[in-house]
């Protein structure tokens, strides 16, 4: 142990000394890989890098970790603009992918043989405007919906709601029993968007061409009853007094604690959170279930799906061929399924054909399975179908959820925000 530590110390010292002494020269056998900084993502990235090094003697993969959220957007864009991006990088699929100008900045991967095994639903989210596929899935799909506390449901004899009215009557029963019916956590503003974004399955069920018309400046949130519903839901739960008292200051970590330990019954969230619950509250992991945001009719009920991040090859990198090999390696079932399950918690289904979820998945992931197995019970979130997502949505949903602004007004303001974003992207018809 001490021995190992000393050599590693020495290596660390040597490494930084080398960095000082000379500018790192491009070595054909060194591949740089820019990944995210979530614990599970880092563990998986390093495992992939190690496996790739083992499979290709002489190749070194340097894993670099970067921030998430808007800082990542700035960083990825500035590094792509200056041609200093790592050979392979991880970034969002969908509307954020469109915003990095993929036709110029990434390498076309349409004709790679491994594309055959990637599910079509993912491919369309990493397809540039000229129809070429530019990425491979890196991670698991997530469901957007409501995480609920199963022991509370059992205690009160409740059933998973299939309509919004049932959901509200469940909330009343939960409130009567003295628990918090709906958890909201506006300390992390992005968490406020779930009622609107995860309701997209219901929007699409009511208006199948909504995404297309929305992109073409024809459909609006304020004038579509189905799209308005998400804002209305937020207003309803606030007016009924179903929120936790500290909803304005609570954070994601608080929300997960409440739903896992039974302080609250419902928390609208993405299923990646099951991974965090598994680490922070391992004993409570199977107390947390999942259901989709219910709509008007019990016959139309399905989950909204978020695609995982994509793995892309930067077009200006010195090792494009090696980078392509790396992406092919990472997209193979041995890595994308088997290795990933080994090192990262399972939080949703895979997007590589032939990947099976293990038997002992957490209860919340098991609850997602029926949606995926039945036809027509899933829809991708709007941000994967349309390049436009207004940056101010989270501020508006916080306002509606706090009772500061009526739903109808927020929907109108969001349409305005969308218009600005579309103009900034230079889309036609705006």
């Amino acid at each position, binding site marked *: 142990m001490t021995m190992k*530590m000393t050599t*590693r*110390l020495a*290596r*660390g*010292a040597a*490494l*930084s*000394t080398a*960095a*000082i002494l*000379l*500018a*790192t020269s491009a070595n054909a056998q060194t591949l*740089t890989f*820019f990944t*995210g*900084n*979530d*614990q*599970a993502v*880092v563990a998986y990235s*390093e495992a992939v890098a190690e496996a790739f090094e083992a499979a290709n003697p002489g190749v070194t993969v*340097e*894993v*670099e*970790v*970067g*921030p*998430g*959220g808007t*800082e990542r957007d700035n*960083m990825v864009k*500035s*590094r792509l*603009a*200056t*041609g*200093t991006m790592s050979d392979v990088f991880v970034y969002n699929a969908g509307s954020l992918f469109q915003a990095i100008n993929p036709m110029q900045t990434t390498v076309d991967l349409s004709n790679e043989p491994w594309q055959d095994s990637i599910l079509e639903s993912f491919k369309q989210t990493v397809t540039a405007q000229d129809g070429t596929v530019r990425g491979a899935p890196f991670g698991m799909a997530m469901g957007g919906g409501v995480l609920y506390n199963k022991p509370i449901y059992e205690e009160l004899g409740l059933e998973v709601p299939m309509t919004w009215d049932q959901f509200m009557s469940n909330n009343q029963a939960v409130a009567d029993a003295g628990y918090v019916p709906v958890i909201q956590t506006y300390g992390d503003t*992005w968490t406020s968007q779930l009622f609107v974004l995860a309701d997209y399955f219901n929007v699409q069920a009511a208006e199948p061409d909504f995404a297309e018309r929305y992109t073409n400046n024809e459909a609006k949130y304020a004038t579509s009853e189905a799209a308005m519903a998400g804002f209305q839901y937020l207003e309803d739960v606030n007016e009924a007094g179903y929120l936790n008292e500290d909803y304005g200051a609570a954070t*994601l*970590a608080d929300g997960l*604690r409440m739903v896992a330990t039974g302080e609250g019954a419902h928390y609208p969230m993405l299923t*990646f*959170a099951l*991974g*965090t619950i598994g*680490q*922070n*509250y391992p004993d409570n992991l199977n107390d947390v279930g999942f259901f989709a945001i219910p709509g008007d009719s019990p016959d139309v009920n399905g989950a909204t799906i978020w695609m995982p991040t994509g793995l892309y090859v930067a077009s200006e990198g010195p090792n494009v061929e090696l980078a392509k090999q790396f992406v092919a390696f990472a997209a193979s079932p041995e890595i994308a399924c088997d290795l990933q399950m080994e090192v990262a918690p399972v939080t949703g289904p895979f997007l590589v054909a032939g990947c099976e979820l293990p038997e002992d998945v957490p209860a919340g992931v098991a609850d997602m399975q029926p949606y995926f197995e039945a036809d027509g019970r899933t829809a991708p979130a709007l941000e994967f179908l349309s390049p436009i997502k207004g940056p101010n949505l989270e501020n508006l949903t916080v306002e509606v959820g706090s009772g500061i602004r009526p739903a109808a007004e927020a929907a109108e303001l969001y349409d305005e925000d969308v218009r600005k974003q579309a103009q900034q992207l230079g889309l036609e018809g705006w």
Partner: protein
Amino acid sequence: MNLIKRYWLTALASIVALVVFVTPFIFIILMAVKDRQQAALRDMSWPINFQLVENFLAVVQARDYMLITAYINSTILTVGSVTILVIVASMVGFVLQRHPTKWTPVVEFFVMAGLMIPPAVVPTIWLLQGIGLFKTLHGMILIEVAYNMSFAVILYRQFVATIPREMDEAAIIDGAKPLDVFFRVVFPMMWPVTVTNIVVQSVGIFNDFVNPLYYLPGRGNETVQLTLYSFQSQFNTQYNLLFMDILLVTIPPLLVFLFFNRQIVAGLSAGAIKG
């Protein structure tokens, strides 16, 4: 009674200072020794499981001893840039104050511009790439020097005015060459403002987060502030390890301050009398 009358304000100030400065520090220490579950609550509670050693090892060993590399990088970055800053800025301040020429207003304009105009990331990276200094520590040192130069020059310029000209003249009459005048006579007398510069700049550069994030990417190039990203992310934060890292990162600037604290006070009062 008399004692209370005399010292109540001092006592009150001490208590306020204790609450404002020591409470956050205690919070950091408590968080740093908790286990993950309890740390996720982020409250001011006594740790149930003491995990000082486990958390310390987890933070130091994270990502192949990245913290050690980061400490080395940050130390070189801080020491290197502060050394260059002090030497160059003191010379500029001295010349600007002692030898006004028609170029002085131009130089002063650029010094002020350095304070007022925010630096742009993309052109800076482009320039660094052009001269082959991008992603290198010495390139980063030059950036820190450039960004902090204006402030340091202004501090020195003001201070040189308080050193009597007769000192330089006496040295010249005694046969000192220009460099001797500066390094053996004037520079030692600037010690108080040099200490101020060292403390202010080294804390600022050591704590710099944004500039290394953009200008010094790459594995092995991390500075200590960037190691915080190993434990904090958008979706999943390990608060116990994050606070242990914060604790370890806070210690070096604290030591610098404790070490120089007496010097600052002594230096300031000495300068005041001479001035």
